[in-house]
């Protein structure tokens, strides 16, 4: 962290996005995380992605649970709505928020502890519910707030700072999300902004629950020799499987790829996700090959990154529930509380 806030210096050459805002306008308050924390880097990627997408800050809901990762919504988009919820219970709160206002752009930030330990159940259900949100898991393999115990995502064989070796199996949130029927599963690395920003942008534009597992080294407790979540290890063992680009609706796709190298997926808002594959045999739209691919590389100790699975056809929560297309928040008192007679009519129907 730093002790003085980042000063606001507007240079005449600062770039402005489509709604007239500078990148600085998407920042939040001073981060109190450790200097060099991967989470701060992810925060910066979120800032960049939302600025580039030119989303109105007041149309954003940012939610989190408990943990180092869950502090970060305070550090981006100060003008957004925010909810720092109970440990592991953020998905429920997010479901409520989106039930109330389906038009909000919802971004949830959680960690490996918040989502894979105490909140594992909530994580699983929000994925299969396919709630229309971006779900970022800032994954560092340790419980940083409680001084670096192994978390549920720590790889077997990984060494702790004081030398203990982890013996338990790791939960891979990407494989889990695909297995649970998720519609969007990706992995990024906090140290690779060029890859992460397009993933976040695609996740925001995807209609459904977009899970992005971001390897985010803990500089204080998990960035040493023997750790499988350090900057050095991730850089060395990173295997970029599928690169993703988001092409906005108005823009033409100018780059052409050889067949088999790229897959195009059209999103509900008209934009296109361009999936560039490094391995032609891989199919990011097929669940079983995705799982096989992940497992094959996991066994080699590799960290597979990229947009691993995308299915834009799966229905999201509002589709399943058949809710009204207008957000409840804008429906008005009269319609929401129709009175005693309407209630009686409804009850009569149920008898």
């Amino acid at each position, binding site marked *: 962290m730093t002790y003085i806030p980042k000063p606001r210096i507007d240079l005449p050459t600062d770039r402005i996005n489509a709604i007239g805002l500078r990148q600085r306008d998407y920042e939040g308050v001073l981060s109190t995380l450790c*200097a060099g924390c991967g989470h*701060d*880097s992810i925060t910066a990627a979120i800032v960049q992605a939302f600025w580039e997408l030119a989303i109105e800050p007041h149309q954003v809901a940012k939610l989190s649970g408990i943990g180092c990762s869950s502090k970060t919504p305070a550090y981006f988009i100060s003008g957004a709505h925010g909810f720092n919820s109970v440990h592991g219970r953020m998905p429920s709160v997010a479901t409520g928020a989106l039930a109330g206002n389906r038009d909000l752009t919802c971004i949830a930030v959680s960690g490996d502890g918040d989502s894979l330990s105490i909140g594992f159940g909530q994580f699983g259900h929000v994925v299969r519910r396919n709630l229309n949100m971006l779900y970022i898991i800032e994954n560092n393999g340790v419980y940083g707030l409680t001084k670096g115990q192994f978390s549920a995502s720590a790889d077997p064989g990984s060494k702790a700072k004081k030398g203990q070796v982890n013996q338990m199996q790791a939960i891979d949130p990407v494989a889990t999300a695909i297995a649970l029927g998720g519609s969007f599963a990706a992995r990024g690395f906090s*140290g690779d902004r060029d890859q992460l920003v397009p993933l976040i942008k695609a996740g925001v534009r995807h209609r459904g629950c977009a899970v992005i597992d971001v390897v985010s080294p803990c500089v204080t407790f998990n960035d040493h020799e023997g750790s499988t979540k350090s900057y050095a290890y991730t*850089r060395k063992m990173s295997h970029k499987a599928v690169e993703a680009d988001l092409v906005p609706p108005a823009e033409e796709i100018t780059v052409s790829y050889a067949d088999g190298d790229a897959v195009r997926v059209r999103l509900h808002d008209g934009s296109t996700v361009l999936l560039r594959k490094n391995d032609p045999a891989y199919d990011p739209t097929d669940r079983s090959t995705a799982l096989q691919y992940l497992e094959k590389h996991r066994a080699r100790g590799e960290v597979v990154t990229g947009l691993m699975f995308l299915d834009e056809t799966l229905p999201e929560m509002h589709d399943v529930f058949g809710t009204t297309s207008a957000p409840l928040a804008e429906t008005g008192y009269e319609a929401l509380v129709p009175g005693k007679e309407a209630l009686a009519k409804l009850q009569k129907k149920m008898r």
Partner: protein
Amino acid sequence: MERTDISNPAYFHQVVDCQWGCPAHTDVPEYIRLIAQGHFTDAYMVNRESNVFPGILGRVCDRPCEPACRRGRTGQKPVAICRLKRVAADHRQDVSDRLPVIPSEKNGKRIALVGAGCASLTVCNDLMPLGYECTVFEALDKPGGLMRSNIPAFRLPAEVLDEELGMIVDMGVDLRLGQRVDSLAALLDEGYDAVFIGSGAPKGKELDLPGRTEGDANIHIGISWLESVAFGHTKEIGKRVLIIGVGNTAMDCCRTSLRLGAADVKVMARKPRDFFKASEWELEDAEEENVEIVINHSPKAFVVEGGKLTGMRFDRMEYTTEDGRIVDQRIVDEVVIPCDDVVLAIGQENAFPWIERDIGLEFDRWDVPVVDRTTFESTRPGVFFGGDAAFGPENIIWAVEHGHQAAISIHKHCQGESMAERLPPTLNLGSRKMGMHEWAYSNDFDPAARRKMEHVPLLERFKALSTEVELGFDAEQTAVEVERCLNCDIQTVFTDDLCIECDACLDICPTQCLTITADGPEEDVETRLKAPRLEPEQPLFASGPLKQTARIMVKDENLCVHCGLCAERCPTAAWDMQKSLLHFPKAIDHGPATCPTSRPLPQRKAG
């Protein structure tokens, strides 16, 4: 791209824009910090080391440092560097015990200096501590040269001049006032070991138009007239005065006229405002005193009626400009502007009628002596030039630097050493880290605007010629202004092999001046910077390949505000904030003098 060599003193020197802009390399951020801490005397001495006359320059310097100031690139006005210099000078205590010790036993070398202005006195300041005997010949009755004769007392009070000149004269300089040197040959015959000519540019330019001789009684040459006012020979001027020219001398002339009884003063400019030579702040000060600046009037003739000047005839001009340059001009019509007096302030030149042309001292085709730009020696060995006498009219601060360099040459000449072998500047770096998030400088960016100098009310300032107009900064103004300094001398120093490429510094940088990117040719790397490169003149820092990905760290020095957040955010201390202390060798650093009792002044340390 080529890895930046930060051990080269020139690299960090250029980052300290004010020090880079100052001809005498004044350590501006250091003295501003000392003022912030209330150490006015220390701040004064840091100044004096390079610019010798802080009290004088704190009032009348041409301030090449201010347009260079980094603050100006953040969309704000530059730090009031010059005004802060005056704060140090006004509030300092006695410095006599900090001045160099003058050896009682001399080294036997005698130096003659012509003119007692800033250049000559700087030479004395540098050579007296080495045991030299300096004799200064001054035509006027008081020392100071153009600083006394041409800068009016309402801008530069006589007491300030006397005190700072006195510090040097009191070192034991043999000052011969009222002695004009009429022959260089005769002076050389007196057997001095070296002669330094710092006689300035004392000849005002003439405007030879019809009526010039007839109206002579009321037509004055600007710099001679100012001198006459300064020495009390001229005490009044007519009610309506025209000043011809819009340089800084013209500003002094118009404001002086107001104090000698003029009521209607017009400054006549041939061209539009964009082409004025005067500094913007001098124009503002004159306009505040209701001087009218009339543009596009080209002088044509002096109107003399009955043997007396009654006005001046001008051609009214019209210009076509393209890209800030005049491409065409037309005369619209002709006007006569009535006046009682005219002051000509259209430039000045150096003139050497007193230097014989057959003594081995070469003059060029403009009749100016040929002087070496590094050693300041003329073509006759042992004769040196400095100040306006060397390369024509410049500013005091340039003359001071000429003096420092000439003093080194004179020292080397007298010791029989090669003048070309001069010591290079040196760089000393010292970390300013005090704790986890503590730095030994005020690193927080202060968005305050530049403080405005208060002036004596208009009604009062014209009562006496010697009433100083600028009041100086008060404590509150000083406290705000010092915090506006960005501490450009506290450098961001990067150690490649400590970096783990976590991007923390890139994200926290408030101006996006850092980039980690793949190596490549500079033109290519430039296109990948996070913020566009605006000033190609400003250096780009490039690290060596980083450990994990072999990419490089690139920093655009132009945008950095030295807030230290990159170093504060860095988990491995790959970034550190280090004070760069540059030392520019003076005469005293160039080898031991033959006199045993002199010693170099202790050098300041970076930490």
